[in-house]
């Protein structure tokens, strides 16, 4: 018995090692039984069209010749002119994958293995994650239910190649009668041919890396109304209020607030802005108006940031969470912090002296004089006042939290597949939105409230309205988990980042995908729109932050500096500074103004889409701030441009 045991433990160890090989050295997994896995292999997964998809591989070629074909092509590509070589090199990866899969599908296991071993080293390093998946896949049976594989199959790998290079390739393949490769190119690849200069290696590298190649050109042609909505008639009370206030205080500042509020917002309709009622938005309530007025007032006291005036940073450290903090959000006015935890709880803290109070029970409420002026104060139960509240309800780690703009609600998304809406008046759960059956990685409220978006492991982002228990829109198209979701400031668009290393922008009105951004080399874990709605910043596990121009659908900047996953991105209130927070325990500040300014002048790039990124990360980096051992997982600029950061202290 003891021997048996030891064997099984040996097995455990092997597994632990294989996991180690996957890149996490200190992981401490272990399995105590293998029965489960056997069951798994029998059960498989119910993917409807797997066999259909896979049948494309049924064509037979001589398996032993695959290596010859591939190395022949390799030789050819290496021999062509430099300017074409970079472009044609893009072919290596998709061809390699498809040839390998074909071998596997046709049960040429040993050939497949040899093929993989021989050529996997040639592939670009950013495909390593996918190669790892492929490496484990050695049998036809494995192909059923493998998601990565399905992604390869269901979507054609997109390559952008100049016409000259393409002709060169075509001629070569026809000369050699290399049908095997030609077939693959025909069937599984989508070659987007453009006229003009072939792209350089760096240009190609900056755009590639996604699971299914680059975005097709036409995918980014749709018009995006990235302008901001006009602020509705709130200014009138604002000015009144302000004048009253100013008159009390004295005259000196009288003109300033007016100018600011008039200048920055809604003088006339922005030509790039969507129509005011393109998406029906909730009516403003009196309390919302009051809040807007507060916002305006605060905004007048805002510090203008720039390379010379960097923001102060206030760090909120979560202590004693034992690595359990998974999500953080601040309210817009920075009065509350919500944290999602691995133990399924959501906690809300008040960071102002004002404590959190519940509304009294119904019985008590009926006793209140509803006509009194301080009725809002009276309905609160003073006995329940505390600095923090815990919300129980989820049954799995909470991966996303988001406050509603009016601070009355809180959304949380969890591993249990639900998104929950909590009332911050009663501190109870109001709704559990069920739709994602798999973990929901992120959720966010629209900047105007009412709508919210969620995305998760099922690769579908859903748009919800708080009063509907079913989603209003489903945004399908990503080939990997949707890891983060963000609303555009005008609430007409939703951006989603995915584990397939692409970012997509969806139109809320019709559910179309209007932008696909490729270029990240790892799953995207953070997104941020610039306050003017023109730009998008994204951060991924590779530690890079990329900047995108929504109007043109272009990558316009790359910020290198972080050494680990970027979990938090935020633009300052005026958009001059981009703050990024990462797992590498740093907050970095970037000169966003300069980053956008440098690129906008270049017309050629806008026309062709072939950007040439300046490598100016070091110039754009304004500051790096280290924490002791606290990964930064959320960033927030207060209305006065103080930077708030949050993370949990990690004692190891």
């Amino acid at each position, binding site marked *: 018995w003891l021997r048996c045991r030891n*064997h*099984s*433990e*040996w*097995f*455990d*160890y092997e*597994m*632990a090692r*294989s*996991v180690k090989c996957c890149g996490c050295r200190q*992981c*401490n*997994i*272990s*399995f*105590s039984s*293998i029965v*489960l*896995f056997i069951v*798994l*292999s029998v059960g498989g997964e119910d993917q409807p069209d797997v066999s259909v998809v896979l049948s494309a591989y049924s064509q037979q070629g001589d398996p032993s010749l695959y290596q010859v074909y591939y190395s022949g092509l390799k030789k050819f590509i290496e021999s062509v002119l430099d300017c074409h070589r970079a472009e044609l090199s893009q072919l290596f990866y998709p061809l390699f994958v498809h040839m390998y899969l074909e071998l596997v599908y046709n049960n040429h296991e040993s050939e497949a293995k040899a093929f*993989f071993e021989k050529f*996997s*080293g040639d592939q670009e390093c950013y495909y390593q994650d996918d190669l790892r*998946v492929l*490496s*484990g896949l050695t*049998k036809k*049976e494995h192909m059923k239910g493998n998601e990565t594989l399905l992604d390869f199959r269901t979507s054609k790998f997109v390559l952008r190649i100049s016409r000259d290079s393409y002709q060169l390739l075509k001629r070569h393949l026809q000369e050699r009668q290399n049908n095997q490769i030609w077939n693959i190119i025909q069937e599984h690849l989508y070659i987007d041919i453009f006229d003009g200069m072939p792209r350089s290696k760096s240009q190609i590298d900056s755009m590639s890396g996604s699971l299914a190649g680059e975005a097709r050109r036409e995918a980014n042609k749709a018009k995006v109304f990235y302008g901001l909505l006009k602020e509705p008639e709130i200014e009138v009370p604002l000015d009144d209020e302000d004048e009253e206030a100013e008159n009390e205080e004295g005259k000196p500042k009288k003109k300033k607030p007016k100018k600011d509020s008039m200048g920055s917002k809604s003088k006339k309709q922005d030509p790039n802005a969507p129509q005011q009622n393109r998406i029906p938005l909730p009516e403003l309530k009196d309390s919302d108006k009051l809040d807007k007025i507060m916002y305006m007032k*605060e905004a007048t006291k805002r510090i203008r940031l720039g390379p010379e005036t*960097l923001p*102060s*940073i*206030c*760090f*909120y*450290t*979560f*202590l*004693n969470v034992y690595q359990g*903090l*998974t999500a953080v959000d601040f309210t817009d*006015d*920075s009065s509350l912090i919500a944290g999602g*935890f*691995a133990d399924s709880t959501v*906690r809300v803290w008040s*960071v*102002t002296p004002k404590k959190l109070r519940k509304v009294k029970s119904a019985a008590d409420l009926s006793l209140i004089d509803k006509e009194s002026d301080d009725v809002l104060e009276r309905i609160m139960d003073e006995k329940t006042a505390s600095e*923090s509240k815990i919300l129980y309800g989820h049954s*799995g*780690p909470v991966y996303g939290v988001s406050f509603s703009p009016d601070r009355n609600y809180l959304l949380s998304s969890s*591993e249990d597949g639900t998104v929950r809406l909590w009332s911050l008046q009663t501190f109870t759960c109001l709704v559990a939105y069920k739709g994602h059956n798999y*973990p929901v990685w992120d959720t966010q409220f629209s900047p105007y409230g009412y709508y919210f978006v969620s995305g998760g492991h099922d690769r579908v982002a859903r748009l919800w309205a708080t009063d509907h228990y079913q989603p209003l829109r489903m945004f399908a198209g990503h080939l990997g988990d949707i890891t983060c979701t963000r609303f555009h400031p005008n609430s007409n668009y939703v951006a989603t980042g995915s584990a397939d290393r692409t970012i997509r922008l969806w139109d809320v009105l019709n559910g179309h995908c209007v932008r696909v951004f490729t270029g990240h080399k790892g799953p995207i874990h953070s997104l941020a729109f610039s306050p003017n709605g023109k730009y998008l910043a994204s951060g991924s596990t590779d530690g890079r932050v990329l900047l995108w121009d929504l109007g043109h659908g272009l990558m316009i900047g790359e910020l290198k500096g972080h050494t680990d996953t970027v*979990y938090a991105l935020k633009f300052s209130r005026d958009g001059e500074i981009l703050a990024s927070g990462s797992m590498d325990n740093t907050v970095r500040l970037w000169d966003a103004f300069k980053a956008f300014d440098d690129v906008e002048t270049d017309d050629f790039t806008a026309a062709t889409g072939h950007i040439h990124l300046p490598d100016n990360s070091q110039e754009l980096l304004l*500051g790096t701030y280290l*924490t002791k051992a606290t990964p930064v997982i959320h960033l927030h600029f207060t209305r*006065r441009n*103080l930077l708030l950061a949050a993370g949990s202290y990690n004692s190891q």
Partner: protein
Amino acid sequence: MAEERRQKQCSVVLPTESMKAMAESVGVGQLQEDSCVALSEEVSYRIKEIAQDALKFMHHGKRRKLTTSDIDHALKLKNVEPLYGFQSQEFIPFRFASGGGRELHFYEEKEVDLSDIINTPLPRVPLDVSLKATKEQQKKESTEPLKAVKPGQEEEGSIQAKGQSATSAEVKGKEKLRMKPRSTHELSVEQQLYYKEITEACVGSCEAKRAEALQSIATDPGLYQMLPRFSTFISEGVRVNVVQNNLALLIYLMRMVKALMDNPTLYLEKYLHELLPAVVTCIVSKQLCLRPDVDNHWALRDFAARLMAQSCKTFSTTTNNIQSRITKTFTKAWLDDKTQWTTRYGCIAGLSELGADVIKTLIIPRLAVEGARIKAVMEGPVVSNIDKIGADHVQSLLLKHCASVVAKMRPAPDVMEQYRADFGYLGPMLCSHVVKARAQAALQAQTVNRTTLTITQPRPSLSVSQSGGVGGSGGPRTPSIIKVPSSLTLMSTRPATPTQPSPPATKYIVMATSAGAASTQQVITLSSSQSGSPVTSTVPSGSTSLQPLVKLESGGGTVAGSRPLQKYIVVSLPSSSSSSSSLEHKGGTTATSPVTIETSVKSERSESPATHTHSPH
């Protein structure tokens, strides 16, 4: 290298023996080789799949470490039941063993006895999640104390330009948002050295150093940063030494408290919660020394009681109510019939030091009762020597403190019988004390009555120093030197601070000075019983500035057996003026000192024969 790794990834498959072993473990006996191969490949693939999914959960959990719960979630994702109850917090729980030419890693599952689990005390409740705000202000001086900033309240002025140069590795000043903790600053290296020196000197064996250290504590203006450490040092020290009955160290610690209180630049309010319990312990503890019948722990109690009175006077406010709380504590302990004499003594001492009013309202009404109790011990059948000594001390204490108060309360003619009627057993004695007190009050109208001085070098150390012959070269008598904090020489009829009551020999900390070098003038001789010879610590002769002297002089010979009444002569002179005269004094065996004090109480106590004999064993 990357290639190597990749190839490895490709080829890692579980060995077929593992399959067999696992099959056996679930009851499948004969597994064919082919099935083993097929299984192992399948299983390896699935495991990799699970591991890759688990990584996803790790990333979303914002961690760097894969946990078992990630695996569970990944299993759940595949519609497989997770492995319940398998948790491992920090490490890979595999044990390693080698045998039969192979290395084995196995998971050790110990048999756990449920009753053990039930009986073990509950572990500490893990701390709850809390939030802490830290401000990174855009200033270069990051060490300056930062202001807690509440969002929405930040000032415009708080944001300042910051150069690129200060970007890397900025140390953050951490600060709590709402509750400001008692600030314990990092001490500089110099301060740490100072702290070490001071604390060692205070509890060390060298009286000269101690005096110096105490004076430093009492006068140095820059100690506030070390205050938390001092207070912890004292409270911890008392806690430990009370248990070990180390009278000497307790006394030293109390003297530290005194010195801290004397320092005008220190604000002790915040540290009273540590200091006061320590002081109270020294007042009322049942046992403070190893030999309660002989050691003079009474003096410590007296001294601590005075400290307590002083702190009550200084720090008691309407909010903290120290005085009333302390009074209550003392009274309660005193009223209890079962309280031992030692504690009883401490309570009375503590109360009476609080002033005449307290004596009047709390002690005098109980004199009769207390008298009866004392009588029972003194005149009744001998219970134990300790009780008797205790009662004796309580009696003299009561008489001493009450006399002056009674003298003020009652009109002049003191009639013995009347006193007996009013105060019972203690009446007559009280009467005579009152008479004396009245006479003294008239006489000593202008005697300054301050409590400082601290010399009651008990005899044993004297006799030892002679018998051991240490310092023989230095002259007939080794002068012990104690530096008195202030240059004033003060006298007090009260028992002064006890310095060295026959100390338990084991507890001495010998300072890093050469022992036995008796050539220098300042030799302090302490008894140390293990060695049988006195440990002598020498003050480096370079430090001549601290040469105030204390001379010991005995009325008769200093033969150990004869036990004469001793006179303690205390000289403390400003170092500049006295150096010559002190040398003179040293030359003669019996020096004529400027001031001579006879501490009556001391000598009285030293009468108990065994008290001060130094016993080497």
